[in-house]
């Protein structure tokens, strides 16, 4: 499948990655994690960055999030180059790891960004209550994260990021640690939220099923060093049903096509 020029598919370009490179020094020699990766993401696109473990997909995401400094190349968000350590205001980030603040209750975690921004308590309270309702966490507002299940915690994480209504959302295998059923639940929750807001999303995963369920486009990375191998369009109609979608023929066809290509990269990763 030829790669589709993303600008043609969606409106203006939100994220532009140009010959991005990242090398680490390990045991005195340089290990290249990401090499010459280039792609663009248009407005409102949901893009999955798919690849085997260790291919540098999280590294790319973290460079966009300004958590890691690139060794070469350029990243632009809305046309402006990003600087390491200077997060862009309207970019939200969801971690793979549970990073909820354990000393804050669910509502205080969700309202954290509003608190930082100095949103008045009354408005904050209303928005937090609405977010908690959307995430299906009614009745848990006063709970501490330690008494919630993994899936619930990740929903709180998601709402903590979404509450400030970021236009661009970076997600680093957010559901990687969840069991299959919880993961499917989370896909439904995320699809429901996204289909209303249509943020621009860059979603890192090694799970092809997840990528197909959620994304409009799948960028397949090669094994280390990570390069863009292929760029697939996922044209399933929306709104999607995370569970029913998996039963369809289109899903199965696209799955097997990408699976083959992904499998080659997994094999390369193993033989290394």
């Amino acid at each position: 499948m030829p790669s589709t020029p993303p600008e043609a598919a969606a409106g203006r370009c939100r994220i532009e990655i140009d010959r991005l490179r990242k090398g680490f020094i390990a045991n005195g020699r340089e290990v290249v994690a990401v090499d010459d990766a280039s792609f663009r993401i248009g407005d409102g696109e949901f893009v999955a960055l798919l690849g085997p473990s260790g291919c540098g997909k999280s590294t790319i995401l973290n460079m966009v999030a300004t958590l890691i400094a690139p060794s070469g190349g350029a990243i632009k968000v809305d046309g402006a180059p990003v600087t390491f350590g200077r997060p862009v205001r309207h970019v939200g980030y969801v971690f793979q790891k549970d990073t909820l603040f354990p000393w804050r209750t669910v509502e205080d975690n969700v309202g954290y960004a509003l608190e930082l921004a100095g949103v008045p308590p009354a408005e904050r309270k209303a928005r937090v209550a609405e977010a908690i309702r959307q995430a299906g966490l009614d009745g848990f507002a006063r709970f501490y994260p330690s008494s919630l299940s993994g899936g619930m915690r990740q929903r709180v994480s998601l709402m903590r990021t979404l509450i400030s209504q970021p236009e661009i959302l970076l997600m680093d295998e957010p559901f990687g640690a969840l069991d299959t059923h919880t993961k499917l639940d989370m896909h439904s929750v995320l699809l429901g939220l996204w289909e209303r807001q249509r943020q621009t999303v860059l979603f890192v995963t090694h799970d092809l099923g997840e990528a197909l369920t959620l994304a409009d486009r799948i960028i397949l990375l090669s094994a280390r060093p990570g390069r863009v191998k292929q760029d697939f369009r996922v044209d399933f109609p929306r709104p999607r049903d995370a569970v029913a979608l998996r039963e369809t023929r289109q899903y199965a066809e696209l799955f097997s096509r990408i699976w083959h290509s992904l499998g080659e990269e997994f094999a390369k990763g193993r033989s290394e």
Partner: protein
Amino acid sequence: MRRVSTLLWQIAIGLGALAIWEWGWAFHDRLPWLVPDLLDPYFVSKPSAIFQQFLAMSCLVGRDGAWTFATDGAFARCMGKSENNLWIATYVTLRNTLWGFLTGVSSGFALGLLLGRSDRLSEIFYPYITAFNSIPRIALAPIIILAFGIGDASKVVTAWLVVVFLVFFNTFEGARSVDRDHINAARLLGASEWQVTRTVIVPSTMAWLFASLSPAISFSLIGVIVGEFIGAEHGIGRMIIEAEARGEAAGMMVAVFVLMVAGVILSSLVRRLQSYLLRWRPAQTAAGT
């Protein structure tokens, strides 16, 4: 069932120990191999004598052996006779303990946070901190009494000195081990440097601070008592030294029991405070602290 049996055992052991203490010495001449010399009432007194002494020292019973609350003004007269009576001594000791605790905890926390978050400062001060920490704090008590006099100030300073290092090291460790991902999460959610400090570094370090509160209050009490041993006008420590000088075992024992009760109450209050402040922790961890 198990709880009842535990309780019965506990009561039986307590009563047994008291009985040996009270009557054990009577068998010393007949069974010297069974009853150690240490049980001599000259050293350890007897529960009944200690209780009598407590009633007298606390002015609940007057010299005449009558309850002071039965006669108007008898309690106040008795209190007036001794400048370091049990009530005043307890009050002074507890007040100084509390001040030592509060000043030690707050300054230890501030220092720990400052050095824990600054690699440069901790690098510079490292040898001094290690050196000071190797000094047994109590060894400094005489110097403190010399410098601050025999009033309350020297006791508070001694207690402070004992507490501040304990809290400092806990806070320091805590400040160094703040989860990087929590800091990153806060930054990505729009926190400024100051907001990161206030909303992430301080609360996560607090957990370490709280864990040190329980030993801190015990240490503070130890510091005050040692200070009072060396030189004081009031306080339980002075009361023990005076009773010792007079060879009054019962008087010393009363003071020790008052300290025991005070210690139990203080540490249970601190533990309550601690488990309230750390209520966000998973249940099994909270129970362990």
